C-alpha cells in the first residue's frame, strides 16, 4: 500500500528514475480530474478530499497506508496496476472502471453515490432509496455525456471516423461532415453560400490580407467554371503575400518583438531580429512543414549550425532576451513555448504543482533545464563588420554545464541546490522524448570570425587602411605645397607653417609604413591560424610561420612606438599642457620595451587574434525537445496548431482557450473535427497550405455570414458555425488594405524593420514596421494590434478612437484624394460610374441600388461637403474625395463578411 501511495502521486516520480519526496496530500490535480470527470454531475459536497481520503487523511502524522478510504484505496490500487502495465493510469479511466463497484460496501454503487452527493468510500454515508430512484435519470444523462466523443487532448491524436450525415450534398470535404453532424443534431440549417463578391473578398483578405482589385473581382464574377473559386484559392496560396498575411498571425503566436530599451541600450529582444520575421514569411511561402519550423526555431543552431538561413529561425528564442533579468527571460521562454506549441499553462507550475493539470513543479524546471544553457549572440554577415549595425542574431548554448535548480515557491532567491534538475518534459504529455545527445559543432559555428568572408573582409579592411594612409600622404604633400606657395607671398609665420607641413608629410609616410606593417602582420598571423586549423600546430611549417608572425608583431610594435614618440616630440600629438614631458617619457619607455622584445631570439609565441570563440559542443537539449514536440506521437502539437489556424480562418477557435488545452481551459466546440484536422495536418506532412486549402474550400467556410433568427434561437453565439462569423480586420490588415485600395501599397517583401513613426507615410505592409514595447504605430494600437508580451488571440474592439483614426488621419485623407483623382481619370466624373467604380475599388463589390442612390445624391450636392470650395469644379472634386473617404470608413471596409 505504501508503494501504491507513492504511485498515487505519480508525477512526483519523474521519468521513472528520480523519485522526489512524495507529497502525501491529496493533490489538487486529482480533485480537478474528479471535477473534470463528473462535471456538472458532481455534487458540490463531493468536490472534497474526503471523496478519496479519510476525514483526517490529509493531515500530517497519519501513516500513508491509512490515508485513503476504501474508494480511494481502490483507485490507488487500480492505478498502480495500470502503471505496472505501462499505461498512464489516467484517473478518468479508473473512475469509469469503478463506477459500478461498491467500494465501501454500503449497497449503493460508487457512481450513484457520487451523483447523489454521498461519499463512495464511507459506508455510513449512503443515499436513501428515494434519492437513488430520483437519480436514475441523472445517471442516464451522465452516461449519455460519457458516450459523446471523448476529448482527450493529452493522448496521441487518433483520426476519428468522419460522421455520416443526411445533408450529403452540402458536404464538400470531411470538415463539412463534422460541422453538418453538429448542425443536424441541433436542428441548425447552414446558411446558403455567400454571394460571389463577398466570398472573393473574404478569401482574399483571409489568405493574403489584401482585397481583390476590381479586375480580379470581374474576372471571378465572369468565371462560370465549376472550379472558379478553387483556382482563386490556388493562386492566393502561391502569392508571396500569403506569407506576409499568415506570417503576421504566427508572429502573434510566437511573440515577435523588435528590440526595446532605453536609448541605445538593448533591454528586450534584440536588433536585427527582423531576419526571423523574414524567415517566418519565407517558410510559409515555401510551405515548409510545421514540424520542420518547430525544429528550426527551437534548435536551428543545433540542426544546421552553419546555415545562416536556418539560424535566423532561432529569433524565436532571441526574442525573449531580457538584459536585466535572466530569470524572466527563461520564464518567458519556458512558459510561452508551452503555451504556443503545447497549449498548456506550464507557468502555473513554476511556484507549485499545477492545480489543474498533472504537471509537477519539478517538471517545470525540467523544461527550464532544456533552455538553461542557451543565450544569444550576433554573428557577422558579409558586408558589415559592425554587428550593432547589422548581423545575424541567433541562439546558441553558451553555458552547457550550467545546472538548473528548482526554485522554491518560484523564487529565484531560494534555489533548492540539493539536486540539479535534469532536462526533460512533463510526463503527462506523453510523446517520445528522445535521448539527449550533445552535438559537436563545426568550426565556423565555434569561431565564426574564421569564416572565409570574415577573413577576406578583415584583410580588405587592412588593405583599405594602407590605401587611405597613402592618400593621406598625397593630401599632406598638397598642403605642404600650398604652404610653400604661401611663403612666397612672404609672412613671418611662414617657416613654422612649412615645418609643420613637412612634419605632417613625414607622419603620414610613417603611417603608411605602419598600415603596411599591420597588413603584413595580419597575413602572417592568418597563415599560422590556417596551419593550426589544419591541425598542424607544432609542425615545422607552423614553427616557421609562428616565428615570422611573432617577428612581424614585434617589428610592428617598434614601428608604432617610434612613430608615436616622434610625433610627440614634434608636438604633433594632442598634448595637454604640462603633461607633454611625462607623455614623452612614457613613450620612450614604451619604445625601449618594444625594441628590447624585438632584440630577443626568435620564438613562436605570437599573439593570436582576439576572436569570438564559442563552446564547441551544444547540449542537444533543445533539439531533443523540438523533436519531441514535432513528432506525431506528441498529443498536442498538431491540435494546438490547427486550432490556431482555424481561429484565424473563422474568427473563433474550436478550443476557445487557444493557449490552454488543459483542464482549466474551455472545452472544444468540435472535438472530433479538431482531432481529424490534427491527424490530417500530420498526414499532409504538416503542410499548412494543404490545410488552408481544405478549410477555405469547405462548404462551412463558403457560407454566408448573414444572420438567421431560427438558427440564432438555437445557437445564439454561432458556436456550431451555422453561418460564417463576420469579423473585423486586424490592425495590420486595416492599414494594408487602406494602402492597397488607395493604390499606394509598396509590395516589396522583407527587410529591416521600419521606423514605426513613419507608418502613415511609408507605404510598406504593416508587419515590416518596428513593433516593440513603446515602439508601436499609434494607428495600429488603436485597432488592437498584437500585444508585445502575448497575443494568442486578437481583440476586436469597436471604439470611437478607431473612427477618429480612419476619419481624421492624414493617411486616409491623402489616400482618398489620390484615389478619387485616379478613379475620375479612369471612369470619368459622371456620378453613377464614379460611385460604381469607387465601391468596387474600396469595398470589392458593386453598390446596391439604394447605396448608389445615396451616393449619387451626395455627389450631386457637392456644396454640402465642400463648403469652402471656390469653384463648382473644385466642389465636385472634393465631393468625390469625400465619397471615397466615406467608403474607406465604411463598416464593410474593416469587416470580413
Amino acid at each position, binding site marked *: 500500500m505504501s508503494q501504491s501511495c507513492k504511485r498515487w502521486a505519480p508525477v512526483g516520480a519523474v521519468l521513472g528514475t528520480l523519485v522526489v519526496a512524495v507529497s502525501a*496530500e491529496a493533490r*489538487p490535480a486529482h480533485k480537478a480530474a474528479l471535477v473534470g470527470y463528473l462535471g456538472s454531475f458532481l455534487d458540490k459536497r463531493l468536490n*472534497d478530499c474526503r471523496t478519496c481520503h479519510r476525514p483526517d487523511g490529509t493531515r500530517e502524522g497519519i501513516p500513508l497506508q491509512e490515508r485513503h478510504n476504501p474508494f480511494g484505496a481502490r483507485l490507488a490500487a487500480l492505478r498502480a496496476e495500470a502503471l505496472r502495465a505501462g499505461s498512464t493510469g489516467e484517473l478518468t479511466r479508473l473512475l469509469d472502471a469503478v463506477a459500478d463497484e461498491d467500494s465501501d460496501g454500503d449497497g449503493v454503487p460508487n457512481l450513484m453515490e457520487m451523483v447523489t452527493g454521498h461519499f463512495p468510500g464511507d459506508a455510513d454515508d449512503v443515499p436513501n432509496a428515494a434519492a437513488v430512484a430520483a437519480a436514475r435519470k441523472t445517471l442516464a444523462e451522465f452516461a449519455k455525456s460519457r458516450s459523446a466523443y471523448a476529448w482527450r487532448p493529452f493522448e496521441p491524436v487518433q483520426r476519428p471516423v468522419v460522421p455520416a450525415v443526411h445533408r450529403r450534398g452540402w458536404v464538400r470535404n470531411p470538415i463539412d461532415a463534422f460541422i453538418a453532424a453538429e448542425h443536424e443534431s441541433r436542428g441548425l440549417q447552414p446558411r446558403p453560400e455567400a454571394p460571389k463578391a463577398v466570398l472573393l473578398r473574404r478569401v482574399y483578405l483571409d489568405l493574403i490580407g489584401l482585397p481583390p482589385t476590381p479586375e480580379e473581382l470581374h474576372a471571378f464574377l465572369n468565371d462560370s467554371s465549376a472550379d472558379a473559386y478553387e483556382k482563386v484559392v490556388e493562386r492566393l496560396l502561391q502569392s508571396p503575400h500569403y506569407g506576409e498575411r499568415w506570417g503576421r498571425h504566427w508572429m502573434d503566436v510566437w511573440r515577435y518583438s523588435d528590440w526595446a530599451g532605453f536609448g541605445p541600450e538593448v533591454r528586450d529582444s534584440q536588433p536585427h531580429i527582423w531576419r526571423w520575421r523574414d524567415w517566418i514569411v519565407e517558410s510559409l511561402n515555401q510551405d515548409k512543414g510545421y514540424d520542420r519550423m518547430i525544429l528550426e526555431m527551437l534548435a536551428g543552431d543545433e540542426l544546421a549550425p552553419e546555415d545562416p538561413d536556418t539560424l535566423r529561425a532561432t529569433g524565436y528564442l532571441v526574442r525573449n532576451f531580457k538584459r536585466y533579468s535572466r530569470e524572466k527571460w527563461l520564464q518567458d521562454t519556458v512558459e510561452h513555448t508551452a503555451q504556443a506549441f503545447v497549449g498548456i499553462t506550464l507557468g502555473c507550475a513554476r511556484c*507549485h504543482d499545477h*492545480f*489543474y493539470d498533472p504537471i509537477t513543479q519539478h517538471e517545470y524546471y525540467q523544461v527550464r533545464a532544456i533552455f538553461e544553457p542557451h543565450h544569444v549572440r550576433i554573428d557577422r554577415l558579409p558586408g558589415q563588420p559592425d554587428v550593432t549595425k547589422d548581423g545575424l542574431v541567433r541562439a546558441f548554448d553558451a553555458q552547457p554545464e550550467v545546472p538548473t535548480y528548482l526554485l522554491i*515557491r518560484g523564487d529565484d532567491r531560494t534555489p533548492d541546490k540539493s539536486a540539479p534538475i535534469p532536462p526533460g518534459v512533463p510526463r503527462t504529455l506523453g510523446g517520445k522524448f528522445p535521448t539527449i545527445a550533445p552535438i559537436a559543432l563545426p568550426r565556423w559555428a565555434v569561431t565564426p570570425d574564421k569564416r572565409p568572408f570574415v577573413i577576406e573582409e578583415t584583410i580588405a579592411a587592412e588593405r583599405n587602411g594602407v590605401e587611405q594612409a597613402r592618400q593621406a600622404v598625397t593630401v599632406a604633400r598638397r598642403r605642404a605645397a600650398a604652404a610653400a606657395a604661401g611663403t612666397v607671398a612672404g609672412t613671418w609665420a611662414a617657416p613654422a607653417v612649412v615645418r609643420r607641413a613637412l612634419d605632417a608629410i613625414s607622419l603620414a609616410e610613417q603611417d603608411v609604413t605602419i598600415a603596411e606593417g599591420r597588413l603584413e602582420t595580419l597575413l602572417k598571423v592568418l597563415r599560422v591560424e590556417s596551419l593550426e586549423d589544419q591541425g598542424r600546430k607544432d609542425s615545422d611549417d607552423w614553427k616557421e610561420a609562428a616565428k615570422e608572425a611573432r617577428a612581424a608583431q614585434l617589428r610592428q610594435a617598434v614601428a608604432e612606438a617610434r612613430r608615436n614618440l616622434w610625433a610627440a616630440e614634434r608636438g604633433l600629438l594632442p598634448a595637454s599642457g604640462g603633461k607633454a614631458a611625462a607623455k614623452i617619457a612614457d613613450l620612450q619607455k614604451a619604445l625601449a620595451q618594444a625594441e628590447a622584445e624585438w632584440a630577443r631570439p626568435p620564438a613562436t609565441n605570437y599573439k593570436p587574434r582576439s576572436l569570438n570563440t564559442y563552446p564547441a559542443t551544444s547540449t542537444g537539449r533543445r533539439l531533443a525537445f523540438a523533436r519531441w514536440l514535432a513528432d506525431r506521437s506528441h498529443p498536442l502539437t498538431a491540435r494546438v496548431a490547427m486550432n490556431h489556424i482555424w481561429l484565424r480562418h473563422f474568427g473563433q477557435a474550436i478550443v*476557445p482557450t487557444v493557449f490552454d488545452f488543459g483542464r*482549466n481551459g*474551455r472545452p472544444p466546440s468540435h472535438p472530433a473535427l479538431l482531432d481529424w484536422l490534427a491527424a490530417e495536418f500530420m498526414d499532409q506532412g504538416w503542410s499548412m497550405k494543404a490545410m488552408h486549402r481544405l478549410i477555405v474550400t469547405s462548404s462551412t467556410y463558403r457560407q454566408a*455570414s*448573414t*444572420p438567421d*433568427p431560427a438558427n440564432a*434561437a438555437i445557437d*445564439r*453565439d454561432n458556436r456550431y458555425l451555422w453561418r460564417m462569423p*463576420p469579423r*473585423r480586420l486586424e490592425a495590420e490588415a486595416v492599414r494594408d488594405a487602406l494602402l492597397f485600395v488607395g493604390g499606394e501599397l509598396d509590395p516589396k517583401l522583407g527587410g529591416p524593420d521600419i521606423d514605426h513613426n513613419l507608418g502613415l507615410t511609408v507605404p510598406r505592409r504593416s508587419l515590416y514596421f518596428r513593433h516593440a514595447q513603446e515602439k508601436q504605430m*499609434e494607428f495600429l494600437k*488603436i485597432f488592437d494590434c498584437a*500585444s508585445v*508580451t*502575448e497575443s494568442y488571440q486578437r*481583440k*476586436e*474592439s*469597436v*471604439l*470611437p*478612437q*478607431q*473612427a*477618429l*483614426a480612419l*476619419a*481624421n*488621419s*492624414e493617411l486616409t*485623407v491623402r489616400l482618398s484624394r489620390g484615389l478619387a483623382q485616379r478613379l475620375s481619370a479612369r471612369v470619368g466624373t459622371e456620378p453613377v460610374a464614379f460611385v460604381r467604380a469607387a465601391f468596387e475599388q474600396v469595398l470589392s463589390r458593386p453598390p*446596391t441600388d*439604394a*447605396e448608389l*442612390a*445615396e*451616393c449619387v445624391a*451626395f455627389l450631386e450636392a457637392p456644396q454640402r*461637403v*465642400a*463648403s*469652402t470650395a471656390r469653384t463648382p469644379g473644385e466642389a465636385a472634386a472634393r465631393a468625390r474625395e*469625400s*465619397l471615397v*473617404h*466615406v467608403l474607406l*470608413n*465604411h*463598416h*464593410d471596409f474593416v*469587416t470580413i463578411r
Partner: protein
Amino acid sequence: MRPSCSPCRGITRRTFLADTGMGFTGLALGAMLFRDGIARGEPASPEPDGQPHFTPKARAVIWLFFCGGVSHVESFDPKPELNKYAGKTIDDTPYKDVLHPDKLKNVIAPNPNHGGRKVLMGLNTPVRRHGQSGLAVGDWWQHVGACADDIAVVRSLWTTDNDHGAQLQWHTGRHVREGPFPTIGAWACYGLGTLNQNLPEYVVLGTPTGDCCGGEWTYGAAYLGPEYAGVRLNIDGKDPLPFVSPAGGKTRDDQEAEFSLLGRLNRLAGIDYPDDPVLRARIKSYELAFRMQTSVPETLQLEKESPATLKLYGIDQPTTRAFGRLCLVARRLVERGVRFVQIFHGGGGGGAWDAHSNIAQNHGNLSAQVDKPVAGLLRDLKQRGMLEDTLVVWGTEFGRSPGAQGTGRDHHPQGFCAWLAGGGIKPGVVHGATDEIGFHAVEHRHYVTDIHATVLHLLGLDPRRLEIPGRKRLEIDYGEPIWDIIA
C-alpha cells in the same frame, strides 16, 4: 449633430427604417424589409427602452477599483485583535476555528501558498475613529476616513477566486475561468442608455486590469455587444485622444456631411445584418467620435478648475497628482452626462496593491497616492450637490490575509470590504462584519454581485428585467441589493 445622426442605441431593423425613412431610400428599404425579414416573425426586440424600471436614486456611477487586493484589516475593517495576537499562530488564539476546512470551501483553486498564512501580523498603520458614526479606519485612508459620515462601509464581502482573476469577478460576478460576462458598467448602460450625446456613456480611466486577470474583460460588455463596453480615455498619456481633428483642413460642416452619408450607408449595410451588435457599435462609434473631437478636449481642460478644487483633489502635489486628475476628470465626465466612470488604480500584472512583501511600504505609498484624491472627489461632489445622484463605489478584488507572509500579507477572498457613497446610499453606516481577526465574513455575508445589485437598484433597474433571451443567468449573477445601506 443633426437628426440623421441621432443616438443609435437600440437600432433594430425597424429603427434602421425610421432613421433613413425619408424619400425613396425609406421606401426601398421598407420594401426590402418586408420581403426579407419582419414578415417571418422575428421576435420583438428585447432591448430596454432606456427608462428605469422604477424611480432611480442615482443617475451616474463613479466606480473606483484598486488592483491587487487592498488590505481590509488596515483600511475600512481594522482589527485591533491582530495587534493583540501579533506573532501568534491562529491555532494559539481563541479564533482557531476559522481554519476549519468547511469554512474554506468556497474558494476556488485553494492554493496552498495562498492560504496558509497562520502567524498573525499586527496592523501596519494606526487606526482612528472618524465622524459622528465613529467609523474606525486605518490611517492610510485618513482622508476618506474624514468623510466617514458620507459613506456606507460593507465589511462582509467574499469572493471565490484566490488569485487576481478576482478582479474580473468583482466586475462581472463570474470566475475568470468562465470567460467574459457583461460588467456592471455594461449592464447599467445597457439598461439605461446614455445621458449625453457627446461622450461615451461608459468611460474607463487609469490603467486597467492586466491580461492575466481579465484584461479588457473587466470593462467589457461580452454578449451585450461592443457598444456597451467601456471606452478607455488615456488621460495620462501624451495624447489622450489621437487623431482628434481632421487632417486636410476639413471643416466641421464638411465632416458632418461625410459622417451623415457614412451613417446612412452603414445602416443600409445593416439590412442584411439586422441587429448586428458590431455594426451598431460601429455606427455609434462614429457618431460619438464626431462629438468627441470637441467634447473630450473640453472635458480635459482641468486648468479651468479653481486652484481650490485642484488642491482638494491633490493635483497640486506630485504624489497625488496623477490619481487626483483621474478623479477630477471623473467628476467632469459625470457633469457632462457620462453614466458610468470606472477608474482603475494600479492595474497591470497582478496589481500594484498585491503586497506579498513589505506591505507597510507598499500600502503606505499607494494609499498616499489615492486617499486624498478619493476624499477630494467625495467632498467636491458633495459641495456641488452632485453626490445626491452620483453613486461612488470603492472596491478591490479581495482583502489581505490576517496572517503574515514575511513582511507582507497574502490574498484573502474569505472576507473583505468595500464602501459606497451618495446616490441613495445611507450615509455613515457600517454593514456586516468579519470575525475578530478579519478572516471570514460572518455577519450579513455578501457575494460581490450584491454590490452590483445595489448599484443597479439605485439606478432604478431590476436586473431580472434586463434578461436577454438565450442567455442563461444564474441566481448568483443577479445578487441581492444590500437593503441596509440603501437610504
